[in-house]
């Protein structure tokens, strides 16, 4: 079964990592790279992507003529997706364990960030009739 694990960041301001000391930053980057490599080596990683900062984000709706209409900047309080993993695992518990590992990514001073990870099951094909 496939799960999407989403890491969110509060507000539209710069990512918190942007002001971290060099050592903490390098530890965090190293963790993320190793994490993705480990998931791939375990045969569980489908896709992992990081997203560019919300400063470049736009909200689009179709205008009256069907052409894209921009809704301007986001409200300050909105949460932003900074990146996601899609994993293919045997059990929901395994998806939760992976999410917990991501959540414990090292932050400032090497302390676990405990950043919330949203875990959502990816819809699957219909079950095969017996």
């Amino acid at each position: 079964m496939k799960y999407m694990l989403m890491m969110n960041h509060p507000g539209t301001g710069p990512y918190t990592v942007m002001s971290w000391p060099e050592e903490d930053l390098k530890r965090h980057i190293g963790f993320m790279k190793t994490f993705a490599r480990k998931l791939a080596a375990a045969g569980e990683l489908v896709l992992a992507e990081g997203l560019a900062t919300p400063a470049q984000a736009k909200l689009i709706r179709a205008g009256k003529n069907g052409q894209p209409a921009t809704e301007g900047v986001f409200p300050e309080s909105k949460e932003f997706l900074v990146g996601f993993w899609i994993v293919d695992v045997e059990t929901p518990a395994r998806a939760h364990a992976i999410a917990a590992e991501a959540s414990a990514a090292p932050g400032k001073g090497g302390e676990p960030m405990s950043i919330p990870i949203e875990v959502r099951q990816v819809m699957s094909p219909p079950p095969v009739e017996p």
Partner: protein
Amino acid sequence: MTDAAESDHLRRLPPHLLRDLAPRVLGVMVRRYRDFAVCEDAVQEALIAAAEQWPREGLPDDPRAWLIRVAVRRLTDAVRAESARRHREELTVSLVPPDEQIALAADAAGGSERDDTLDLLFMCCHPTLSPASAIALTLRAVGGLTTVEIARAFMVPEATMAQRISRAKQSIEATGRQFEMPAGEELAARLGAVSHVLYLIFSEGYAASTGGELIRTDLSGEAIRLTRMLRRLVPDDPEVAGLLALMLLTDARRAARTGPAGEIVPLDRQDRSLWNPSAIAEGVALVSQALPRRRLGPYQVQAAIAAVHDEAPSAEETDWPQILALYQLLGRLSDNPVVALNEAIAVAMVHGPAAGLQKLDALAADPRLAGHHRLEAVRGHLLERAGDRSGAVACYRRAAAGTASLAERDYLLIQAARLDEPR
């Protein structure tokens, strides 16, 4: 067949044999049967059959003839299946011109084979195709890569890549094929379009080599192989030689370009003992032969700049005055704002950071660069050299917020963090 089994098969074949044969076989097929889309599918199937059978049964005496024979059989099958659906025979007749129903004796002649492959390249890199379509089609039809390999290289699903290739083939059919070889300025323009596509393939592969991706097709290697092939077809074209030189001189630094954790290592901090000396020697020789021909072009000048970097024993010993002169020359050849940014760095290295920053201020007025993250990154670099730490930190962070490359963002954030530490 699984991927592992497929690569295992291919490993036991002489390297690149199938990929090198691909355009030569397709060239013959297209000349004989005209229908590019159908021929291309048939050749692709023949290549897959060869990858399966040759390692098991040994190389045929004439691999090219084997591939042509199998491709013709697949083509015939495809045509039969099609005519069963429509009216029999009609399509077969239209597909195979009467005077070409017997194998052409001219197949063996080197001259026509050269034209066939060039013709294929011109077709796949036709200016009416979008770059993404041209890249995919070139890799498959001329490069002999499978759709799976191309999809993996661009990290898109196989079905998406298959569709992109098939749409590209349709738009080629729509533009109508030209059989006559272009000459003079038209030839130069078409060669320019091909060079651009090959350069994009190279850049894609080179940029991805920092992405920490585990299994991606080696696109820079493919681009170099195809550019070598192009150079054999037009040995007197100095820009094609310049393009090959530029690729070799850039790719020579690949091993030094990333650190142990996959982080970007800038040119001035690279371990030069990791650079590939034979690629540098070949690139330098190519650019030295091309430059005196007095048909200067942007690829030759970029290759010359790369050669100056590659030949410097250390970053400190880099001949910056020569690099500056070359960037000024490049700026006159092509109106490219990124070239102007690099020129500003060279100005700073020769005349000091203040002069470089002055040049940057002038560039900031260019709407193509206003707010561009590269401008901020270069400004950060020059401010750092000028001793303005807090100014540099702010620029690096603005640049980090603006880039869409994760590796580049990490690099810029680390630069900012390094300067921001209290001393």
